Every structure is written in structure tokens, then in C-alpha cells.
């Protein structure tokens, strides 16, 4: 288990979206700004330090597929682990549906506060892998 090495979190102005990887730690400060339609559903927790373990590539791929279909992303636009749901055009209804779709696909239940911390495809994939490994343990 990685330990929290960084002790200071820097706050950036709301419009600047910054994520930095610091030796396995992912510091995400201010997320999801720029969405003009404030909505409930998938909403990231602000300034949350999380321990990032790499998600399985096949999980990431599957999430990309589900998201691409739900949001009808044109085939010429990439959807990757780094893709943010909001930037792909997800509105409040989409985000709830995506979570439901992931629950169905992977046979998991996503708690509300976990759902709120998912901003990218990778976030979702990591959560899924965590829930799936928790189940089989």
C-alpha cells in the first residue's frame, strides 16, 4: 500500500484543472468546473487525495466502450482512461445511466459517495476493480 508522502495540497483557481501524479499518488484539486449545468450525480469530491492503483487495461477498455455508447461519442474522437465524463458531454441523466450500466456490466453496487468521486474513465475502472476484488476476497 502506498503511503501518503505528499503533505501539502495546493489549491488552484476553479477554472484550472490540474491533476498531477506524484509517485503513485494522484492529487486531484478542483474538478469538473466548466460544467455549466450543475447537476447531481457523478460529482467529484474537491481536493481529495486518493491512492491510485492502476486499473486493469481490460476494465478500462470496457468502461470506455460503455461510456462511448452512452454518450454517443463520434468514432473519430478518442475515449481513453484520462477522458472526463463531463468533457465528453455527459449530463446529469447520462452520469446516472453510466453508473447503472457499469453496475450491471460488472455485477457491482456503487455507493452514492463513491459515484460522486468518479470524474474520468480511469476513476470508474479503478473503483470497479476495487469492488470486484473485494467481492471475490
Amino acid at each position: 500500500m502506498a503511503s501518503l508522502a505528499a503533505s501539502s495540497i495546493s489549491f488552484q483557481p476553479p477554472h484550472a484543472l490540474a491533476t498531477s501524479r506524484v509517485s503513485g499518488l494522484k492529487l486531484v484539486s478542483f474538478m469538473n468546473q466548466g460544467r455549466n449545468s450543475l447537476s447531481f450525480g457523478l460529482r467529484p469530491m474537491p481536493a481529495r487525495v486518493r491512492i491510485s492503483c492502476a486499473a486493469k487495461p481490460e476494465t478500462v477498455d470496457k468502461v470506455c466502450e460503455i461510456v462511448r455508447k452512452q454518450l454517443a461519442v463520434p468514432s473519430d474522437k478518442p475515449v481513453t482512461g484520462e477522458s472526463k465524463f463531463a468533457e465528453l458531454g455527459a449530463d446529469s441523466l447520462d452520469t446516472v445511466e453510466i453508473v447503472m450500466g457499469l453496475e450491471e456490466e460488472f455485477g457491482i453496487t456503487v455507493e452514492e459517495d463513491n459515484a460522486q468521486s468518479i470524474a474520468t474513465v480511469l476513476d470508474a475502472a479503478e473503483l470497479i476493480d476495487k469492488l470486484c476484488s473485494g467481492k471475490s476476497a
Partner: protein
Amino acid sequence: MEKGVQRWLVDISKWNPSSNDFSFALSLLPQTHHPSITRFVKMEDRKRALVSLLLQYALVHEVLGIPYSDTVINRTLEGKPFLECGRFSFDIPNFNFNVSHHGDYVAIASEPLCLVGLDIVNFTIPEKETVQEYIQNFSSCFSSLEWDRIITAGSNEDVLTEFYRYWCLKEAYVKAIGSGLGYGLQKVEFHHINWTNISVKVDGVTNPRWRFWLFDLGKGHSVSIARGYPRSAVESYKRSLKRTEFDEEEYNVGLNLPNPRFVFKTVEELISVVHKALCSC
């Protein structure tokens, strides 16, 4: 005080800018906002984001007369935009606004005293699943009374309409208070008489300090407005408000202001207003 109550609406299906037109419109907005527009993958989303900001700057300029260079629009952690630099005035003690976009429409609503929340829904018919399967995804967001109303509404079209209307109202409320969270929506229960006289019960208790309206915009879109109590705002949004304390009498004046119809604006008009404001600095 009535001047602070605004409802503006733009039909963006009528705006098809060339890439130069788009760049020009973008250039009218402060540089700090540009990433929040260009980060969207789809052009339609970029258009909505751009028009939303144009609405915000145009409205602030027209209603409050603040010079463009003094206008600072920021966002709370949850993403709700607010005016950072508003000045105190007796007749507009707590200017605040909210924006929404969905489908063909982008809209803004402002209030001089009460909180305002606004939401547009575009009634889309689910393609890959039945109506029942689709709405089932959201069942935990509704109280049992509301859910019952939805599923017994009648035809598939009726069920979907009922669903979207309740959803729209919930969004307006959540957005008014500035909450970005899931929030236990099933506790916020809406009551109405044929979608008028709309009121809300939270945890079973009617809250008399809120008003709601729901209108059809045509083209399968509806818009909802929530007007309510500044002290109900979430902490981060409350900090952005000029005033949250009002005595009963003052508050009732704000609560009972007229709720005007939406005024249509074209993108060209907004561009012109913002451009003029920019140039007169």
C-alpha cells in the same frame, strides 16, 4: 427590485458559427474561461458552454451595469457560477443567477434576493431500452409518491413526460442551493396541481419559503425555475452570496416577485452586448 428578476433563453440550433465566428465569440470572454469551453470534445457542447458564458456576462452587464473589466464570474467547488464582484445596492440585495442547457436551449435566470435554480430538460426517448427500463435507472431519486405518479401516468409518452418533469424540478432545486451532490433526492418531494402551484416537501414537511414553476418550451423541451431561501444554500455557495439574512417581511417581497416569461435572445445579440461592453472599457 424587479429588474433583478431576469429570464433569458437562447435557441442554439439557430446558431451555426464558422470556426472564425466561434473564435471571435470566444475572444470576447476572459481568457480564464477559455479552457472551460474548449475542453469539451463535441462542438455542440462547446457551443452551449460558450453561449452560457455570453449569457452570464451580458446579463450582469445589463442588469447591474458593472463595467466589463470589473466583472468577475467564478465557480464554487461544486461548479455553480457566481458573480465575485457584485456591489451592494438596496434594491438588489442578493443578486444571484443560474444557467442551464440541454438540447437546443441555453438559459439564464437571475434573482435580486432569493436563490434561483434553473433546469432545462430535453425529452429524449430512450433508444436502446424500454421506457420502463430507462426510468428504472433513476428510481432511487424519487419519493414513493412521485414514483407512483410516474409509473401510473399512462402511455409510455405520459410516463416519460412525468419523469422528466419531476427530474427537471429536482434539478432546479439542487442547482438553486448550489449542491453538486446526490443529496438524497428522494427526500425532496414535489407536489403540484397539474404542474402549477408547485411546492416541495423535504423529509415530509412542506417548505413555504420556496416557489417553483415549470414551463414547456416547445420542441420537446421543458424548463423549471426554483426560487428560494438563501440560508438553504450549501456552505460553499452561501459564502459567495451578498446577503443571506432577511426578515420575514423583506423575504416575502423577494419570494412574491413576479416570475416573468422567458425572453428569447439570439447569440448575435449577446455577442453585440458583450462586445460593446468590452469596447467601452
